[in-house]
C-alpha cells in the first residue's frame, strides 16, 4: 500500500505542528507501527520547520511519500545565499561523519555555543534517515529517505 501527502503553501512556524499532526493522522491506515508513525511525524516536522524558517519568500513545499516500505520526505524552499552555504556545509559534515549518531552528538556538543539547530541531525540520527540536498540557484531541495518497519 502506498500513500502520499503534499503541501505547498505560505506557512509560518506556528503552522508546522498542525501539519505534523495531520501527517501523523493520515498514516494510521498505512503504517502499522506506532514507532514508525512517530518517526515520520517528527521528521516531517523538523524538515518542514527548516524549510519555513529559511524560506526567503514565505513559502515552503513538502511531500511525504510512503511506498513499498520506504519513506521519502522532500522539502523545497528558496533560501538566502548564507543559509544555502550553511546547508551545504551540513551536508558535507553529514557525509564525512562515520555515522549519523556521531554527527548528531557532535551537534549537541556545539549546541550551547552555536546558533544552529539540531533538526537535520535529529532527522538523520533519531529518524535513521539518509539526507541529500539539491541546490538550484536559490532553491534548496532536501530529500530524506528511510526504510520502514523497524519501529524505533
Amino acid at each position, binding site marked *: 500500500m502506498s500513500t502520499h501527502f503534499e503541501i505547498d503553501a505560505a506557512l509560518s*512556524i*506556528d503552522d*508546522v*505542528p498542525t501539519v*505534523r499532526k495531520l501527517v501523523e493522522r493520515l498514516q494510521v491506515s498505512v503504517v502499522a507501527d*506506532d*514507532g514508525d508513525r*512517530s*518517526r515520520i511525524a*517528527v521528521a516531517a*516536522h*523538523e524538515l518542514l*520547520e527548516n524549510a519555513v524558517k529559511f524560506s526567503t519568500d514565505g513559502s515552503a513545499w513538502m511531500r511525504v511519500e510512503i511506498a513499498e516500505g520506504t519513506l521519502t520526505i522532500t522539502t523545497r524552499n528558496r533560501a538566502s545565499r548564507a543559509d544555502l552555504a550553511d546547508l551545504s556545509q551540513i551536508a558535507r559534515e553529514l557525509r564525512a561523519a562515520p555515522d549519523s*549518531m556521531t554527527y*548528531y*552528538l557532535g551537534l*549537541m*556538543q556545539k*549546541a*550551547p555555543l552555536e546558533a544552529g*539547530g*539540531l*533538526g537535520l541531525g*535529529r532527522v538523520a*540520527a*533519531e*529518524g535513521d534517515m539518509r539526507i541529500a540536498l539539491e541546490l538550484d540557484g536559490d532553491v534548496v531541495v532536501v530529500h530524506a529517505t528511510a526504510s520502514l518497519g523497524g*519501529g*524505533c
Partner: protein
Amino acid sequence: MGNHGPLTASTSRDGETMHLTCLGSAESGAMTQLAQAIDGVHAEAIGSATREVIADIRGLEFASSSCLKVFVTWLQRVKELEAPQRYRVVFRSNPRHSWQRRSLSALAAFAGNVVAIEAESE
C-alpha cells in the same frame, strides 16, 4: 498520560530532589518558556543541596529540536559543574510517546555521566 495542549513546566522540591514536570507539547515557540523553567531549576539546584533533578516528561507529547537543544544546553551546564555542585538528571519517560525513547537515548549518549532514564512501565 497525554496532554495535547501547549507546554506547561512546573517545579517543586522534595528534600534533596527537585522535580521539573513538563506537560503538553514543546513546540519551537515554547523554547524560551522551557529555557526559563530550566534556568530556574539549575540555579536553585546549584544554590542548594540538590543531588538529583527529576525531569518528568511522561506527559510531554512532543518536543521540537529547538526544545531538545534547551535540554542539551542544560545537560552541558550540569556536566561542566564541579563535583560538589553536580547533580544527576533523571528523565521519567513514557514509552507511549516513542519520540522520547529515541531522543532520550541520544541525550544519554551525550551526557551519560549525569543522565539516567526511567521509563514508565506500559
